[in-house]
C-alpha cells in the first residue's frame, strides 16, 4: 500500500513539527541550567528524552490511524504524540509542569495522557505493551473499531513484558501492532550486546505472528509495512510486529555525554538525517515545490512557537492541588 501524495505531505509536515518541537524543547530545557548543568533547575526540570531522528517511525505508522485508535508510547514519546494528534499546546504545558497541561502538570514528559486521541505513555520500559494488548482485547470484546499500537525501543524487547504480550496477543488474535523503534542503543548499551538475534522481527515470528524488519529509517517504507500490519489487525487477522531501523541523533537524555558512541557515529547519522533525506525526495519527485516546502516549514515552526508560547504564559497549578486525582 503506497502513500498518496497527501499522505506523503502529511508525513513530512508532521516530521517537521516533531523536529522543530524537539529543537525548541532542547533549547528551553537548557534555560536556567548553566553554569552547572542541574536537572532540577530551569523552565523544564527533570529528565528529557528527545526523539530527533526517529520521526519516520511515528509518521509512517500514525498516517494510518484515527483518533479512536490507541497508542501506548514510551519514555521518548514526543514524536509519537505529535503524529497521533495529541493537543500540542496542552502537551507542551504538561512538559513545563503547568496547570493548562494535559494533567495539570502531574504527569510530565514521560507520562502524557490525551484520551481525546487515545494516547498514553509510560517511563517503565516495556510496560506499555500489556495495556495495548488489553485495549485491543477491549475493542474486540466490545466489537468496537480500532487497533492498538504499542511503541517500544529495541532494548525494551528484552523485557518479560515484551515476550508475554506478544504471546498473549498472538493466542488471542488481537488487533494490536507492536512497533519497535530500533535505534541500536539502550542508554549506553549496544543492541548487539543485549540480543542474540539481529532483528526483533525474528522474535515475533517465534510467537507465530508476522515480524517485518524495515531498514533505512524511511517514512514511505514504514508507511507501507505499517499499512499491511494495521490492515491485518483491522480485519481481525491478529497482531504483527514492525521492527523499524531508526537513528537516535541525540543522546539518550539531555545531559548524556555519549562517550559510549563509537567515534564518528553521530556525524555519520547526521548525514542520514531522515528529514533532510525525505525533503530531498519530495522535492525531486515534485510532490512539493521549493515554495511549498518553505511554507510548510514556516507553518510547522509557528505551530511549535504557539505551543511554547501557550506553555510559557500558563500558570502553575497551586501546589496543594497535588492532592487531587489520586482517586476519581
Amino acid at each position, binding site marked *: 500500500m503506497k502513500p498518496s501524495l497527501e499522505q506523503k505531505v502529511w508525513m513530512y509536515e508532521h516530521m517537521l513539527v516533531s523536529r522543530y518541537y524537539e529543537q525548541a524543547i532542547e533549547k528551553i530545557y537548557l534555560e536556567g541550567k548553566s553554569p552547572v548543568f542541574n536537572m532540577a533547575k530551569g523552565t523544564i526540570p527533570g529528565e528529557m528524552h528527545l526523539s530527533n531522528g526517529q520521526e519516520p517511525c511515528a509518521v509512517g505508522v500514525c498516517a494510518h490511524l484515527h483518533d479512536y485508535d490507541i497508542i501506548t508510547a514510551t519514555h521518548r514519546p514526543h514524536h509519537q504524540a505529535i503524529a497521533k494528534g495529541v493537543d500540542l499546546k496542552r502537551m507542551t504545558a504538561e512538559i513545563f509542569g503547568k496547570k493548562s497541561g494535559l494533567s495539570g502538570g502531574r504527569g510530565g514528559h514521560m507520562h502524557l495522557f490525551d484520551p481525546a486521541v487515545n494516547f498514553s505513555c509510560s517511563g517503565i520500559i516495556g510496560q506499555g505493551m500489556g495495556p495495548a494488548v488489553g485495549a485491543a482485547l477491549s475493542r474486540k470484546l466490545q466489537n468496537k473499531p480500532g487497533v492498538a499500537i504499542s511503541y517500544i525501543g529495541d532494548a525494551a524487547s528484552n523485557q518479560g*513484558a515484551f515476550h508475554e504480550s506478544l504471546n498473549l496477543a498472538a493466542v488471542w488474535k488481537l488487533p494490536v501492532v507492536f512497533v519497535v523503534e530500533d535505534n541500536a542503543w539502550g542508554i549506553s548499551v549496544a543492541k548487539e550486546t*543485549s540480543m542474540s538475534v539481529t532483528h526483533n522481527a525474528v522474535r515475533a515470528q517465534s510467537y507465530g505472528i508476522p515480524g517485518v524488519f524495515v531498514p533505512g529509517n524511511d517514512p514511505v517504507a514504514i508507511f507501507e509495512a505499517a499499512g499491511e500490519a494495521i490492515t491485518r489487525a483491522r480485519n481481525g487477522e491478529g497482531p504483527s510486529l514492525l521492527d523499524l531501523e531508526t537513528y537516535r541523533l541525540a543522546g539518550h537524555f539531555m545531559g548524556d555525554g555519549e562517550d*559510549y558512541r563509537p567515534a564518528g557515529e553521530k556525524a555519520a547519522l547526521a548525514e542520514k538525517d531522515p528529514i533532510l533525506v525525505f525533503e530531498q525526495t519530495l522535492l525531486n519527485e515534485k510532490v512539493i515545490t521549493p515554495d511549498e516546502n518553505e511554507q510548510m516549514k514556516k507553518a510547522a515552526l509557528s505551530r511549535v512557537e504557539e505551543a511554547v508560547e501557550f506553555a510559557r504564559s500558563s500558570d502553575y497549578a497551586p501546589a496543594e492541588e497535588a492532592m487531587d486525582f489520586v482517586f476519581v
Partner: protein
Amino acid sequence: MAVKERKLTIARAMAEGIAQEMRTDESVFVMGEDVGPLGGVFGNTRGLYDEFGAERVRDTPISETAFMGAAVGAASDGMRPIVELMFVDFFGVCFDAIYNNMAKNAYFSGGNVKVPVVLMTSTGGGYSDGGQHSQCVYGTFAHLPGMKVVVPSNAYDAKGMMIAAIRDDNPVIFMYHKSLQGMGWLGTEKGATVHVPEEEYVVEFGKASTAKEGSDVTIVSLGVGVHHALKAAKTLEQDGISAEVIDLRTLVPLDRDYIFASVKKTGRLVVVDEDYHSYGVSGEVMASVVERDISILKAAPKRIAYPDIPIPFSPIMEQWALPNVEKIVEACLAFDYHQEQAALI
C-alpha cells in the same frame, strides 16, 4: 603533621568499596544496566569496568526479572553478585525474584542455602523526574522479612555499609538517594561528601548513629532526610531548642533501642521520611517507641513524610509535597517545651 582529609562522594565511596572487595574476593561481580563502561548512571560503578573487565562488571539487557533471578541463582551457587536496579521505581518488573526468591530462599532451605546478593538501587526525587522515577519505597522493601535494607546518608557510611553488604551472607538492599550521590546534575547535598578512609572498613548493620546531639526533641531520619534534619536543628538552636538528630542508617535490622534511648532523653519525637506517609518507616519508628513505653513521651509524636500521592512532575507540586527543613522546624516548634510532665499518661 596535619594530614589533609580525603573527601569522597557517596558514588565514589561505593565504587571504592566494591573495588576493594573485588580485589580480595573472586566471587564478587557486578551486573546491571549501564554499570560497565558508563560506570552507572549514578556513578557508583565508575572505574570498575576498566579494572575488572566485562566478565566481572557486566552490562545487562533491560531484563530485570532475568538478572535479578540470576543474582539469586549465582549467589546460591557460591558467588557474591552485586546487582543494580537503576531506579528503585522499576522494582515492579522484577519483584517476584526479590520478594519470593531472594528474600525467602534462606528460610525455605532451613538456612542451608545462602543468598548473598547486594541489590543497589537509587531512590528519591526533588528534581521533577515524575512519578515513576522519584519514589523512595523504603517501606516496601523493609516490610518483607529476609532482606536487610540499608540507606546511607554520607560517603563514610556508604563505603563501610557497601563492604558490610558484600560480606553479608544475606541479601542486602542498598538504597542510595540520588541527591546524595555527588552527581553535579542532581544538585548534590554537600554534607554527604565526607572523609572516607582509604583502607577497608565495615559499618555494622543494625546500628543507628547520632548525627547531632540534643536534649529537647529527637528527629529521626534516614538518607537525605538526615541533612534536612541537621539544617533544621541549626535553625532551632536560634530558638533555643536543642534537637537531637538520629540517622537510622539501616532499616532492617532497625535499631529500636537506640531510637528509644534518644526519645527517652528528649521526650519528643519527629520522624522525617521521604517515603509515603502511610504504612511506612515513619509509622514503624513511632510504633517502636510507643509500644515499648508511651510514658516517655511528653507530646504526641509527629511525622513528616511524603503525602499518599503519586509523585507529581510539576516542581511547584513536588517541592510542596517533599519533606523539607521548614516543615521539620515547624513541627519541632509546635511542641510545648515548657511542659515537663509526660502528657500522654
